[in-house]
């Protein structure tokens, strides 16, 4: 008997007695207000992320362009920003280790948690979102969902090879509870509200 058969046979022989139906999941009332952009920003900041401040009427990417000018290697996965490392030409994921700043667009954001979702489609090379020192995320304000629960009703989780929610930057507090950003992944995550 293979281990597969042995495990399945043991499970069948040991099946717990009783009726254990799968409960329907109710739609809980969202715990966020109607201004999803404000709610998202507030929660993202509490998770260590940044919201790019934009003065009314000015270019939302002005501040970002200033930062990019000071960076040596910029990998951009978005048409709005030009980088100097072409993600479509990367031979292996580890080659992105020298990237200073990566710019990507989120599929959507979650107001309840301050999270943004990426799939392999947005990242082009998945490792760029972790090997880069800093991550800049473009998010269309109309791409915000209210809750984690509604996020999991989106189709991307079943259709992508890789889907990931980022909520702020890489973090650790494994040494005496001292919170430190940039444990293994990006040291900072900045979201720019920018329509597609």
């Amino acid at each position, binding site marked *: 008997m293979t281990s597969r058969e042995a495990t399945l046979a043991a499970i069948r022989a040991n099946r717990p007695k009783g009726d254990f139906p799968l409960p329907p999941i109710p739609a809980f009332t969202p715990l966020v207000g109607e201004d999803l952009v404000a709610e998202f920003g507030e929660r993202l900041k509490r998770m260590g992320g940044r919201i790019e401040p934009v003065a009314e009427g000015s270019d939302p990417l002005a501040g970002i362009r200033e930062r990019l000018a000071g960076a040596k290697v910029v990998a951009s996965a978005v048409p709005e920003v030009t980088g100097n490392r072409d993600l479509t030409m990367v031979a292996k994921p580890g080659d992105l*280790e020298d990237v200073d700043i990566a710019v990507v667009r989120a599929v959507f954001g979650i107001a309840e948690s301050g999270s943004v979702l990426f799939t392999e489609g947005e990242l082009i090379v998945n490792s760029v979102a972790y090997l880069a020192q800093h991550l800049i995320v473009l998010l269309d304000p109309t791409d915000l969902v209210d809750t984690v629960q509604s996020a999991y009703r989106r189709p991307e989780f079943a259709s992508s090879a890789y889907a990931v929610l*980022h909520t702020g930057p890489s973090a650790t507090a494994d040494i005496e509870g001292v919170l430190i950003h940039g444990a*293994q992944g990006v040291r900072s995550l900045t979201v720019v509200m920018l329509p597609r």
Partner: protein
Amino acid sequence: MSAEGMNPQKDPLHPQVQPPTDESARGQDGQRLQHAEGASKPVRAPAAREAQPRGAKIRGDRPIDQAEAAERFIAAPLHQAAHDARLWDVRKKRDAATQAIPEWEELRELASQIKTHTLANLDTYLEQFEAAAKANGVHVHWAADGAEHNRIVHGILRDHGAKTLIKSKSMLTEECGFRHYMAANGIDIIETDLGERIQQLDDEEPSHVVMPAVHKTRIDVAEVFARTLGTDPTNDDAHYLAESQRVTTRPLILQADAGMTGCNFAIAETGTVVTCTNEGNADLSGNVPKLQIHSIGIEKLIPRIEHLGVFIRVLARSALGSTITQYTSHFRAPRKGTEMHMVLVDNGRSARLGMEEFWTSLKCIRCGACMNTCPVYRRSGGLSYGATYSGPIGLIIDPTFNKRKYSTLPFSSTMNGSCTNVCPVKINIHEQIFAWRKVLAEEHQIPLLKQGMMKAAGAVLSRPAAYRAAIGAADSALKALPRFAVYNPANTWGKKREMPETPKQSFHAWYKQNRMKGGAK
């Protein structure tokens, strides 16, 4: 930076481990941050040198003497105080996070029901998961036990000529003794979670399911890193130490032949493996090397993606008091030009399913909330249990792996029931602890001295009416039990302390007198 952030409130519990300044990260608006496993206020053991207490002595199959190891932990007051303060802080963060959502109790009930349903139909869901994963182009393997898991993974690595493997933290691979097996077979395993890496470099097991090095002070970490990574032994700055680990681990990540992660949730309908981490190291393990392997305990299955809407909301709140972990990753199919393997591991789980009193322990999602709230765990450290799983959940899981070796663990509990109250999937942990005591006594797995004590108490405790009558006569359970049962050297928790003054009237008697006046309704 706010004045409050720099001078946080006094900690009445352990003022000796509260430093005057605070180094935790600040947010964009200057506010003090406490996401991930960050402490809500600084906890820092004073710089005085105190050797780190080590864990329980392992002597083959002989019963672990948890009390002996706990005594050594208590004898290191700075470590003990810092550990207690740190975990109590996480517990309080958890309370605040759970109280912030009105549907908390409903979510716990849903999480529990989804898990019990899945476990009761685990064969069907495993077959569904396997079919979905195969359709996604994933290689699926089945391992009956830890040894087979290790052999399978070794075989995959051999097929690819892989010599180095980076991995994220996984309790399952700890259970399998994976690192030790691979070391003996010439494969380099590199742990990439900071806490787990500290433990690997110190050649010590993790002491907590979420915070593997929580029993170590920064001075201990500085010593380990100086010895193994060549850092400055006099520099115990947490930022310096974390950065040293980052820069020394990164080249190993880039060069690794294979990557491995554990699994928080496995989705039957899509064949997806979900991991929840704060550091991004599981994503590096899954996205950098050409070969990726996910080890999955068969109890990690849940039916559908929509169920993550329940579990993701309860996991980080229970574990850390955070809304969500920094990274929630969903691995479904291989990247172009790479291979993806999933290993479904039984290792005693299918047998546990048949244990009427204990099968619901399989609902566990490894959040660690029961450990953080447990007064015994906080004061004795995870290593004192001498087992992969420590704290309350360990007491009920460990004996399923080895009844003799872990026969004493179910006695390391005050039976206060707090573990059950915080469990996000409603496992009746303290009741199972009590049930294990009975099983172990019946099977003569516990020492004679403890058996005598159990017999004396058992006759009274096993019958509610007799118990109440005994209490009525003696005013309290403590008095109803023979004195030797309370102060017996085998009763660790009566040792070194007098039992509290007993109330003049028991709660039951008070209730009867004040609330049941005019006859029972």
